[in-house]
């Protein structure tokens, strides 16, 4: 089980070593110590491995992740798991802005709060935030789910496409074309599945959530809607 000390090893060497792993590698569990907020830690992974980061990570930790499970013991900087394709990224602390931006798959689990623009332009990822999320979250979100146990800031889901937003707490305001939608059985099932995936089955009642989605009124530009933007 390799342990890499980022005070002793350059980041470039760590990422190169992780990129060089074959899909059938036996080196499946890695620990990174003294991350000290370095940027792009464990970015671009593409192997079914588990990477534990013992501390705080800077920008773009686990960016473009595929297959790997990356656990950040502390807080994560801007763009954690940006453009993730698959795998799991788990932030035990808080996450900064643009968490899960444009991510296409996998699960981003944030135990604390997430800053502004959480899930911006998300394209299929499942994001679950146990705390609250900041303003302009799910801006232009295209696909996937954003589940929030706490509150959401201003302009949630502005210019939303087909992503589904499940919020348990208060929403300060909705963005353009984002509306509350009825929670049907299929949605409750989906929400339960996401909660279960995050290890929260039985702990959190899906009935406490409200669902938000796109009114789809801005899908085709029309001059009468110009004031909505």
């Amino acid at each position, binding site marked *: 089980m390799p342990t890499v000390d980022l005070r002793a090893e350059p980041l470039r060497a760590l990422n190169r070593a992780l990129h060089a792993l074959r899909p059938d590698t036996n080196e499946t569990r890695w620990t990174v110590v003294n991350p000290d907020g370095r940027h*792009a830690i464990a970015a671009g992974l593409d192997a079914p491995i588990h990477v534990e980061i013992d501390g705080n990570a800077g920008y773009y930790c686990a960016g473009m992740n*595929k297959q790997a499970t990356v656990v950040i013991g502390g807080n994560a900087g801007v763009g954690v798991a*940006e*453009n993730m394709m698959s795998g799991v990224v788990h932030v035990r602390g808080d996450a900064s802005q643009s968490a899960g931006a444009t991510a296409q798959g996998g699960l981003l689990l944030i135990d604390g709060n997430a800053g502004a623009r959480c899930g911006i332009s998300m394209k299929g990822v499942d994001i679950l935030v146990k705390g609250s999320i900041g303003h302009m979250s799910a*801006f232009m979100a295209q696909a996937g789910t954003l589940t929030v146990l706490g509150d959401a800031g201003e302009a949630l889901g502005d210019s939303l496409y087909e992503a589904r937003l499940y919020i348990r707490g208060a929403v300060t305001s909705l963005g353009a074309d984002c509306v509350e939608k009825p929670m049907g059985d299929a949605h409750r099932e989906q929400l339960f599945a996401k909660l279960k995936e995050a290890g929260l089955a039985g702990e959190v009642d899906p009935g406490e959530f409200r669902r938000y989605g796109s009114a789809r009124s801005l*899908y*085709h530009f029309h001059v009468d809607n110009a004031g909505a933007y």
Partner: protein
Amino acid sequence: MAETPPRTVPRTSATFTPEVMAEIRRAAATGIYDIRGAGAKRALPHLDDLLFLGASISRYPLEGYRERCGTEVVLGDRFASKPIRLKTPVTIAGMSFGSLSANAKEALGRGASLAGTSTTTGDGGMTPEERGHSQTLVYQYLPSRYGMNPDDLRRADAIEMVIGQGAKPGGGGMLLGQKITERVAGMRCLPPGIDQRSACRHPDWTGPDDLAIKLEELREITDWEKPIYVKVGASRPYYDTALAAKSGADVVVLDGMQGGTAATQDVFIEHVGIPTLAAIRPAVQALQDLGLHRKVQLVVSGGIRSGADVAKVLALGADAVAIGTAALIALGDNDPRWEAEYAALGTTAGAYDDWHEGKDPAGITTQDPELARRLDPVLGGRRLANFLAVMTLEAQTIARACGKSHLHNLEPEDLVALTIEAAAMAQVPLAGTDWIPGKAGL
């Protein structure tokens, strides 16, 4: 018999031209601004306003058909372990599958590969056809991140961080629903048939400090192998070039307002940004001030049409050029052979710019399978390769006449300007004088 008194000749306004009045009527009838493709169409100070001073007694030329004049260029050797090596400094600018047909993208790849140069993806990701037919492919990293994935990032030969384009610096894009077919929608993770908006800002970084960190992430993901370009629309070229270089770019791509777009507002195209001619010297100056000229390469685009344009841009200090609109014309865009169909669309060959509507008679800016079939990608690629060869030969002809054994040896000193505006923008003397407007002591 009484004489008819002289009458005033009917006089049209230079301010309210027929085009202006037609646009006012169109706006009044529809309530929506005009959207179109291509770049600025208004007359602008341009490279035609510059001339080369051929060699004579004070300089001696190279023999046109016998003495070597190099054209090769290396892009991205500042930080990347695998820089791009091209046979000609004329590259193909970023154009998306979605705005262009798959056949058109394939033709661009074929033509560029035959000529030994690179082609570039656009918003919407990389298609297998494009990768397969492009020997050297630059993968654009755009705010929308449509189709962005790490596999294609590693399959690319270089990465281009797109911050803006000359037709609309500060603007995003819109691909109208009629071009969002199942395939295009699938690549962009959107429902088919809806208008697709491309954002004007990146979702996970703002400003030069963040940009440096973002570029570092892309380098880490690709193990520091790929050259990273940063593309900006020309508006404040000195500062944007300096900030791109400071952020760690290997290459800066500078696109003037004549550079084309798939679709945006006409008012944006014609009124935002600066001409290519005005942008080059400040960008070169920025690199020189940083001691990075020729270390960070400068690629200039926006209205490059001929080998003369190539030679002039290189003489002003750039390392390479990129062509977009000219490449589409080489493939067959706006060809008079389709005049009847252009007329049916209410336009004429040479003026067709409703590329966003997807009805292109030439089968280039469309996703309609019937229209797209009109472009043979093999023949189109050959035509583009021919055009690229001509541009390169023309540039060599001029360079030899100026006594240069490589296109990169051309200098501002080889140029004069025909107009005061061009002299001021290009910072070369007005022809027949030693006067550079704005320069004291001459």
